[in-house]
């Protein structure tokens, strides 16, 4: 609809040619520049995907998906890092998202003018740029060193901390964009405030909130540094959260620089798997949202 509107409008106003022509020329230039920008971004994406697929697809075999990691030359797979990554990413998202959402709700709905809210907003934004290895170090100090061993749960904690600020930032921004009139309408019908927030504001903003969660998943699914000193990695099969746990990014980190062709191949395949996995989550979430809208 929006694409036909300006055409109609401009047709009607063609008489005021001078100013209008200039504005339309500017519009054309901006439109062309935006198309070029989109093209550049798409070209980068195609180049990345091409690099990933052309390097990673050869290793994407049945045995890669069903066998555990082995020393070089023994035909190992990626089963333990795949499962480890799924467990850690999923748990971190499940823990980090509600905390981030509620904190974002607090900032957007309750925090107006509050000093505490300002402080929360500020430190949360600062954490966005904290090098993730320092988050790993923090978790190491509170969950690894005191217990004397590395564990999957420490990895989950480090990733969950990284989820929080991204979700907080997007939640607050998106909730603030929900028109006041919608909330007022709900409140006028006698809805308690928490219901107004959860059923009106959050629902209206859910697309944006989902973007935040997906960006957070994308970020933690590929994080290496916070896992090195928390979940460490595991060469053997283990799904126990109390034990060191393998993950795809740590496997990439250690295999990509190795001297052995099969390990380097597995590193590229890991990279392909992470990207494909995050994309899949993205698409499923979007399709799910769209279905719910109807």
């Amino acid at each position: 609809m929006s694409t036909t509107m300006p055409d109609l409008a401009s047709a009607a106003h063609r008489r005021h040619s001078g100013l209008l022509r200039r504005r339309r020329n500017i519009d054309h230039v901006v439109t062309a520049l935006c198309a070029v920008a989109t093209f550049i971004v798409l070209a980068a994406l195609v180049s990345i995907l091409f690099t990933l697929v052309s390097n990673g697809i050869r290793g994407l075999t049945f045995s890669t998906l069903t066998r555990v990691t082995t020393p070089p030359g023994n035909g190992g797979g990626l089963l333990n890092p795949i499962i480890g990554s799924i467990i850690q990413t999923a748990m971190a998202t499940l823990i980090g998202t509600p905390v981030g959402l509620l904190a974002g709700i607090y900032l957007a709905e309750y925090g107006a003018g509050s000093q505490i809210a300002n402080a929360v907003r500020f430190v949360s934004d600062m954490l966005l740029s904290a090098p993730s290895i320092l988050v790993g170090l923090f978790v190491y100090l509170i969950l690894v060193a005191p217990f004397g061993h590395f564990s999957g749960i420490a990895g989950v904690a480090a990733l969950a901390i990284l989820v929080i600020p991204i979700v907080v930032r997007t939640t607050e921004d998106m909730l603030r964009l929900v028109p006041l009139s919608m909330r007022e309408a709900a409140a006028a019908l006698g809805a308690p405030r928490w219901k107004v927030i959860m059923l009106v504001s959050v629902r209206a903003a859910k697309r944006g909130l989902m973007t935040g969660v997906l960006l957070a998943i994308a970020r933690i699914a590929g994080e290496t540094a916070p896992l090195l000193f928390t979940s460490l990695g595991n060469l053997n099969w283990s799904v126990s959260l109390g034990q060191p746990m393998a993950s795809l990014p740590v496997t990439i980190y250690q295999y990509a620089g190795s001297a052995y062709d099969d390990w380097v191949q597995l590193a590229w395949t890991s990279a392909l798997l992470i990207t494909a996995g995050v994309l899949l989550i993205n698409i499923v979430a979007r399709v799910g949202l769209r279905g719910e809208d109807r």
Partner: protein
Amino acid sequence: MIGLAFTATAAQAVDITGAGSTFAAPIYGAWGAVAKSSIGVALNYQALGSGAGQNQVIARTVDFGASDAPLTAAKLQTNLLIQFPTVMGGVVPIVNLPGIAPNQLHLTGEVVAELFSGAISTWNDPKIAALNPGVKLPDTAVAPVHRADGSGTTFVFTSYLAKVSPDWKSKIGAASSIAWPSGAGAKGNDGVAATVRNTEGGLGYVEYAYADKNHLTTVELKDKAGAFVAPNLDSFTKAAAAADWASAQNFAVDLLDTPGEGAWPIVSATFVLLPTNPKDPARSAEVIKFFDWAFTNGAATARKLQYVPLPAEVQTNVRHAWTNVAGAPDMSR
């Protein structure tokens, strides 16, 4: 289903955790895979880097630490650790010079030091030409590439430069990461190799296994006896044989520029650090059982991955040293 099957096998084996040296990761992994089925010890070794290996065993978050750089006697004592070598390997300079074949270029330690310090800035420098009569050297600028990540390989390489060049020793020094006077850094062996490949006139250093597998252009270095030696398992073994193990305290042997004929000058051992007062003696006993098995049965695997196994008499001394660990099984024979 698969999960159940794996959990079942893992439950029978005792899991031990080690962390540290990246250089040693392939061989510990290879030994671990066989040891699991033959003696029931499941090793989880993670290559965090040598410094991290030291820190983690001191913090007692792992059953053993692994480091390319030995700890001092004082540090071993205060942290209640013993240290022993497991295998040895070489570090090799690599170059990217059009028309120069692998091992065609001859260099000395002093010249390598001057190339990395920036004192020699073009490849047709008279000092290089004097070492390479008959070789056509390009007038390309020297582009030194070093490891950007703190690394045991850098420790070994800079220790060699400091040993052969007094100038390097006084002005720059040796450590796992240093203030490089010139050039660019790159992450990991692969990063250094790729940057050298991208840059005409490039010069870098990598672990030998990496250079060998990727057919990089290595150079010949002058050994202590004055002959030019190519890097290979044979010249590393000669360096190991010529080392003075007897006077080395805590096995911290010096394998750099050893006097043996045909000995590659940049060789180092990699070490394992083990607490003498383990919080769980049973697990330390498993670590000892593992390395005992590896010493007896792992030499062929080590050579296949381009590592030099320990000489027999050193193995005997290491087995003796294990008796210092509380609750250790007696492996001396």
